[in-house]
């Protein structure tokens, strides 16, 4: 079913604050098989000039994934048919342990490509204090039946 074009340009309220822990960063680094000590050892991170362990470049997906807007039944999104089309991160700085962040997402584009539906979600990730961390651009494709 076609995605609801009324959602183009719609922004969603900021997500609940997410507190980034050292253990979550380590779990993520383990899951992607990256042994870099900068993701698990605060001393190694400090030696590299960071205040605490930092997160891998794709970690912001953990805090920006989904979002309440995509669960809105009016959007007509069939999650089982969704594949990830494109992803981009624009970093102001790495996420680090201790950050408390919120995400504000906007659906910037919905259009048909053949039988598929393409949707772009832009997310601004900031600390609760308002410090910008990262912008993410998430393109998902709902495959046509």
């Amino acid at each position: 079913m076609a995605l609801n074009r009324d959602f183009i340009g719609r922004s969603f309220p900021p997500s609940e604050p997410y507190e980034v822990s050292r253990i979550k960063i380590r779990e993520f680094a383990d899951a992607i098989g990256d042994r870099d000590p900068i993701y698990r050892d605060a001393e190694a991170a400090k030696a590299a000039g960071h205040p605490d362990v930092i997160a891998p470049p794709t970690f912001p997906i953990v805090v920006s994934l989904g979002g309440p807007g995509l669960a809105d039944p009016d959007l007509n999104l069939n999650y089982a048919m969704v594949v990830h089309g494109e992803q981009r991160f624009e970093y102001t700085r790495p996420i680090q342990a201790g950050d408390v962040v919120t995400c504000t997402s906007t659906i910037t584009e919905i259009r048909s490509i053949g039988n598929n539906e393409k949707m772009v979600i832009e997310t601004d990730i900031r600390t609760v204090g308002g410090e910008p961390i990262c912008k993410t651009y998430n393109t998902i494709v709902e495959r046509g039946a």
Partner: protein
Amino acid sequence: MTAKVNYADVEVGTEIPAQTYHVDRLNLVMYAGASGDFNPIHWRESLAKAVGLPDVIAHGMYTMAQGGRYVTDWAGDPGAVLDYGVRFSAPVVVPDEGGADLEITGKVEEKLDGNRVVVALTARSAGQKVLTRAKAVVRLG
């Protein structure tokens, strides 16, 4: 926050040594848990096939993470990555037996001001390009 590779030491066309990363179902289960993406196409074979996929496929973000790891291992500091984007052009199919290999290559595509470079990546699995337009902007030392 300084990359270990020096801007002066790279030229447009400088190649980054190729790497092969192996991916098994276990990696996808771990990734599902760590990322919170529990879409069953990444772990339930019957469901993946029912929606027209050849088998379970890796999360696009898992594949993208391997490209990120490739870049940060080269640069020496994950904090040096300023921008990273990819297009997922084909799924990485991960059979129950034997898993899959992901081969990543990269080269310096452009030198920018402020010691920044654009690194262009390629990622292949089972002979297919799985990422296209994969680029990272990295601030070198």
